[in-house]
């Protein structure tokens, strides 16, 4: 066995190399991908961001929420409604507003949901998400004429002279937001605040006894996480050209949870790996069997749970680094 210091150093280098390779690939991939592949990559980045935001609450703070799509959808609906009712295409109005409204929704829901914990927290977040779903389903103002959901969303206007956005440009726009979010969230989970979240997940009463206002920590995590889910939602509605009530409800809330679990809950890049697996398997499985792709995805999920319970990301990392990173350790 090697000494801890060099092992740690090696792992740090390995991490740096992997992140650099990943960044390089993300930067260059539009050069050799078809526009279909590009769309798929855009979709992957959006859901990776969504899953990372969810991981702050679920993985780090240990709060099992089943209503995270409410914030994703709130961001998406903001963009869609601005377009539908006010004809707003300008990215710099829609996106910040989507972010703020998602954060505001999370601030409101957090006050209600964080009064309880454990299974009750799960149920309350689920119920709140379903309330938004049913609101979006039933209120006429929240739907395009004659249908459920809002269509007619187009790629955003960035108000840059001489630039009309195409899907390649849009991929890079999403990549920029993804990168910013990665940096911000990475700093967040490695700050005293983020480390305290892990402590609260492990033993809340101890953290209170040594001076942490645990409620406030969880609440802030919930709001921050909701705000980032809102960014993902904003980017998604431009990508998808269409938002439906399902983007607020349980069907969408499951996605980041499944991705986080597949990739590695409570590790920083786990949800990103989970999103890779999910998005690409979903895509190719649905080409293979248009009717039965959920079966393949479900089967894969079960296999991962059984044989790589800590997640594919953690599993691969162990293979590469040949050491066992302390699961749930602060360094993640």
């Amino acid at each position, binding site marked *: 066995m090697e000494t801890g210091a060099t092992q740690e150093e090696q792992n740090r280098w390995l991490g740096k190399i992997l992140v650099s390779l990943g960044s390089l690939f993300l930067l260059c991939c539009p050069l050799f991908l078809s526009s279909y592949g590009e769309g798929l990559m855009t979709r992957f980045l959006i859901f990776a961001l969504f899953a990372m935001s969810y991981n702050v609450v679920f993985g780090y703070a240990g709060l099992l929420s089943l209503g995270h799509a409410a914030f994703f959808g709130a961001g998406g609906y903001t963009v869609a409604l601005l377009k539908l009712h006010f004809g707003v295409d300008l990215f710099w109005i829609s996106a910040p507003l989507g972010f703020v409204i998602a954060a505001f929704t999370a601030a409101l829901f957090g006050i209600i949901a964080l009064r309880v914990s454990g299974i009750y927290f799960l149920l309350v977040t689920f119920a709140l998400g379903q309330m938004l779903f049913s609101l979006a389903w039933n209120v006429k103002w929240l739907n395009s004429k004659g249908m459920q959901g809002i269509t007619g969303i187009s790629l955003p206007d960035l108000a840059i002279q001489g630039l009309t956005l195409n899907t390649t440009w849009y991929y890079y726009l999403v990549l920029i937001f993804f990168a910013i979010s990665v940096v911000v969230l990475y700093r967040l989970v*490695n700050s*005293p*605040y*983020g480390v305290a979240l892990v402590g609260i997940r492990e033993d809340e*009463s*101890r953290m209170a006894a*040594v001076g942490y206002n645990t409620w406030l920590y969880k609440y802030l995590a919930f709001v921050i996480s909701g705000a980032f889910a809102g960014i993902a939602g904003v980017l998604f509605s431009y990508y998808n050209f269409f938002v439906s009530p399902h983007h607020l409800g349980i069907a969408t809330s499951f996605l980041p949870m499944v991705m986080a679990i597949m990739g590695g809950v409570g590790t920083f890049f786990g949800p990103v790996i989970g999103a890779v697996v999910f998005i690409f398997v979903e895509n190719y499985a649905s080409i293979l069997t248009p009717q039965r792709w959920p079966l393949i995805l479900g089967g894969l999920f079960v296999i991962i749970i059984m044989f790589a319970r800590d997640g594919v990301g953690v599993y691969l990392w162990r293979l590469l680094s040949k050491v066992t990173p*302390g699961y749930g350790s602060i360094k993640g």
Partner: protein
Amino acid sequence: MEVLKVEDLSKRFGGINAVNDISFRLEVGERVAIIGPNGAGKTTLFNLINGQLSPSKGRIHFFGRDITALPTHRRAHLGQARAFQTISLLLNLTVLDNALLTLHGTRPHRFKMFHPVKDFKDVFEDGVHALNALGLWEKKDEPVSSLAYGEQRRLEIGLGLAMQPKLLLLDEPSAGLTIDESSDIVEIITNLRQDMTVLIVDHDMDMVFEIAERIIVLHYGQVIADGTPEEIEADQHVREIYMGVEASDTTLKAG
């Protein structure tokens, strides 16, 4: 100076008075033990003092300030530290992470969101110091769950001390320890700074009589005796309750 003043404190659970009209005061630097049979309300009393429970009746003052309605984390900031009856360390995290998290808790920068946690050098140095003093520095990168039970206990108490509290609450520190490990704990406590006030609950009478300058005896949620170890040892009422009626021949200490 008065550290803690508990006035007419009561806690009811359903129809049971777990703590019933308890009043006492602690002066700075006092080493006080609370003893009593199982179910006497000792841990409930601790939960009331540290804020895990709120009382049904009565008030708690800490350095003259009414803290009855303050949440636990605010009491930690005012200078209370507690070691729980069952180990309450963060078992999946490393020894060092536990130390740092404990020390960050009462510092103003605990809410900092965008600074790496390892940038806070002063906290790190305090953590290193605390772990060295406990003889656990060698194991800093091991998860707490892999430590022996005695080491976990020592770590928990040591981290409580590292918070430099004004009042240290120890709930059965010797539970589950060997005699050697217990005497380690006794040594730690007897070597504390003189201005640190210690309130301790324990069943280990040897330990209680070694540490405490004053003993409060609880029975069915009420204080039935409060005095020096000698007074308590001589108290007939305590002997009857604590040792059973036929205890007059044995000494309390031997129990």
